[in-house]
């Protein structure tokens, strides 16, 4: 069984994600970012159209290509000895230490603790009336689901078909769609957790929400 508290402790003891920036191909390296300890930012903008901080240039066949920071973080190990040198593909250039955000921590915990039931096609989804009633009266964490249970109605282009749940048995922990909204294929519809872990997950998530300090 998954020990969620242990998982959280693990994350707490090392709240970083180490990102190793490697040379995508051979070429001569010229570092553009400063020194170890400098902060860099990742790709930004509504469509990710603004590149992150420029880390280095890699020149091959007179073709100078920029290497940008993939995420926000701190430079911890920059291999300045490679400056001006010809490197092979996959050579480690520098390491970024990305401090996990609150959202990332919760996502990481839930990813391990929950089973995500995903949308099989782009459509509108509704709960069947019985489940809907139960959800409304006693809240979502009161609904127990099991393999093959009729649970949702898929509504698309005036065609409505029932959709049975498939996955491990448990309680609905979270519902990711809204009534009447179109859900894309592969998007999560429900998060299901084992019955005995419900209170622990709730507790841990609440703690992360309140206690996790984001590094701005």
């Amino acid at each position: 069984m998954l020990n969620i508290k242990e998982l959280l402790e693990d994350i707490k003891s090392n709240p970083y994600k180490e990102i190793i920036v490697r040379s995508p191909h051979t070429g001569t390296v010229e570092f553009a970012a400063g020194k170890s300890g400098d902060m860099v930012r990742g790709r930004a903008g509504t469509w990710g159209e603004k590149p992150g901080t420029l880390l280095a240039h890699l020149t091959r066949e007179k073709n100078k290509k920029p290497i940008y920071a993939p995420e926000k973080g701190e430079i911890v190990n920059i291999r300045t000895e490679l400056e001006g040198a010809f490197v092979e593909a996959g050579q480690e250039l520098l390491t970024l230490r990305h401090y996990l955000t609150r959202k990332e921590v919760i996502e990481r915990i839930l990813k391990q603790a929950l089973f995500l039931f995903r949308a099989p096609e782009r459509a509108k989804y509704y709960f069947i009336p019985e489940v809907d009633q139960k959800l409304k009266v006693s809240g979502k964490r009161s609904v127990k689901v099991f393999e093959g249970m009729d649970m949702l109605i898929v509504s698309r282009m005036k065609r409505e078909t029932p959709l049975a749940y498939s996955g491990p048995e448990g309680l609905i922990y979270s519902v990711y769609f809204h009534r009447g909204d179109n859900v894309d294929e592969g998007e999560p519809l429900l998060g299901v957790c084992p019955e005995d872990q419900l209170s622990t997950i709730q507790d841990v998530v609440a703690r992360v929400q309140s206690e996790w300090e984001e590094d701005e």
Partner: protein
Amino acid sequence: MDREKRLLALRNRLAYVEDVFGPDGNDSIRVLKARAAEFLERLPHFPQADVEREFRRIEELLDFSEKKLEKELTPMDRVRIVRHPQRICLKDILENVYDNYSEIGGQGEYNIDPSVLIARAIISRRVGRRVVNQPVLVIGHEKGHGEEFRNGGSAKPWGNAKALHYMKVAETENIPIHTYVFTPGSYPVEDYPGAAQQIARNLYEMSALRVPVVAVFSEGGSGGAEAVALADRRIMLSHGYYSVISPEGAAAIEGRLRNGQRADSALVERCARQLAITAQDNVANGYVDRVVQEPPLGARPDHFEFFKTLRREILQATNEVVSSVKSMKLFRAMALSSRTHRKAALDPESIYVRWDLSNAARDRLLCKRYQRFRDMSHHAYRDNRTFMDKIRSGLEPLCWSLHSFVSYGLARGMRKRVRDLAEEVSAEAFLISERVVRPARKALSRFSGPDQPRAELGKRAKEALTRLSCPEEGACINGDSWVWMSGRAREDRAVSCPNARTHGCPDLWAPDLFSEFAGVCPCCGHHFSMEYEWYFYNVFNYAEAQEFNADIESGNPLEYEGFDAKIEQARKRTGRKSSCVTFETSLDGVQVVVASLIAPFRGGTVGAAEGEKFILAAERAQKKHYPFIAYVHGTAGIRIQEGVNGVIQMPRCTLAVRRYIDAGGLYLVIYDTNSYAGPVASFLGCSPYQFAIRSSNIGFAGPGVISETTGMPVPPNYHKAYQALSRGHVHGIWDRREIRKNLYQVLLTVGGRNLYYR
């Protein structure tokens, strides 16, 4: 109560004067402010008997100051006047100039676009003993005295579409149209119908709108203004402006400002002065017919005398247009023209001209409209053609017309008869051969065995058709290597495809990419931009083409500071005299006229020279019955340094194109690299056949301007050709390597009835 009203009016007038002269103001304003403050402070203590006198004194002082300040107005002050919430707006004009009106196409904010107002209005006047009601359709921008939902009179594409719809209604009802231009510019979004494409559609339809159109300019901001202002008479309010770009926009370009940085006010002032935007400038340049004098510091809603003047001018203008094309006019035409020449003549209210037109008069109206715009802006370019060239360019069209008349008119019928006869004869011969010769040959072959060479030939043809490659001959080269190669193909270096991150394209070696691959990434199909010469030589057979009017040169008509040097630099760099290159060429045996806008010359911007060359090319294609192709290697829009001389090319060229299309031609537009703004919003965007080369960008305004104007972030692929295709702005996307083939197919399959090869 009266006192309160007067006080409010006084405060409004003061605030107006202060706003007009900007934050810096001047001494007269400071004195006026001090006097007004003193008056307001002392007002509660005045004895009742003195209040009237004191009010009159301060009002007289205001009148005097306004008159004095009027003389000090700079062009930028005029810009502030037209944008002021106290400025008259279209609703005021409808209330005060017309006798009755009904707003149509929406009311207030319950409107598809509240910034465009449309009304059916009535002008009533007494003719002898009876009252005549003359209906007109009023279309214009409504600023609504600063109402937020009016968007400052910035029309959205669907607002312009609404305007166009009602113009067609007026055409059906045979009533004149009065348009009022109160716009700082069009709202630059690409959502269907798209700012550029809709303006182009408006211009195209207005080019042949068969009713009189009179336009009144207050704030004429570039393309937004043109969408309703292609008119038979253009009147301008004395404090208005009509410009290619807002002075702030020009300053941002001049100062190379990015990301919404503000230009300093001195630069904005300088740009406003240099762009020649005032009513007087526009009259002097011939883009506006008359100026309506406004009261000092501009008309406000309580200037009722001004509305009377405006009514007279509008009546006069409409009468003039109608009587210039009507057959039955006689004394009234004389009376009207006498009023134009001598100020104190008959009041236009007393001259009654029916405003509906007969079919013949409508045709004359279109001819006059074309001629009117055709005659404009000739002063704004340098015509370096020799005297002989000019004579030839005058005589040649006559010869072409004569030649076309003989070969496609007179001889066509005869040729058709001969061809028909030949077809009949050959059908008869075929029948005889099938019935007589074939059985005889069959019988012979039965005796002599199968025909060896013929069988061998058939086998070879079959093999050629069914085999995919020719392995024994080594690499299968189809012999389609390019005639012209880019200089970049000689550089020994690798190039990255911009889609490498998403498509995983490997690096490309420049000599491969820019020669054999024709600048196309073999992995994802991204088209790297290529030089215009590549298309000229590889697609348009430029080596054998005949270029014409190369000596019509771009100039600096407004004597814009530093622009002479820039033009000279562009001339040296490209070896050309304007960004428009026009030539006659043959595409696989089909003769065509090509007009091309090339990006290396001032970004492919369009000024007076480019417009003139484009029109001459369209006229040439029409006279010779050739297809007309506009190849846009790249255009950044209208050349702002030429001011209205540039922007007037939008209606001018659209009129020429419309005339060409109506004459039964084929007008085809091909966009490459980046095509934006004015040209796309007029003579390019109006083509019924528009194609884009892959990886090109097409739009009205660039992403920076859109996010600055609308406050919305612009997705990175907003202007991509495929987006334009899905919005319905272009009709196909072509691979660069297949343009020639596609062009030939289009030449054969689309277009009007009057092409020489049809």
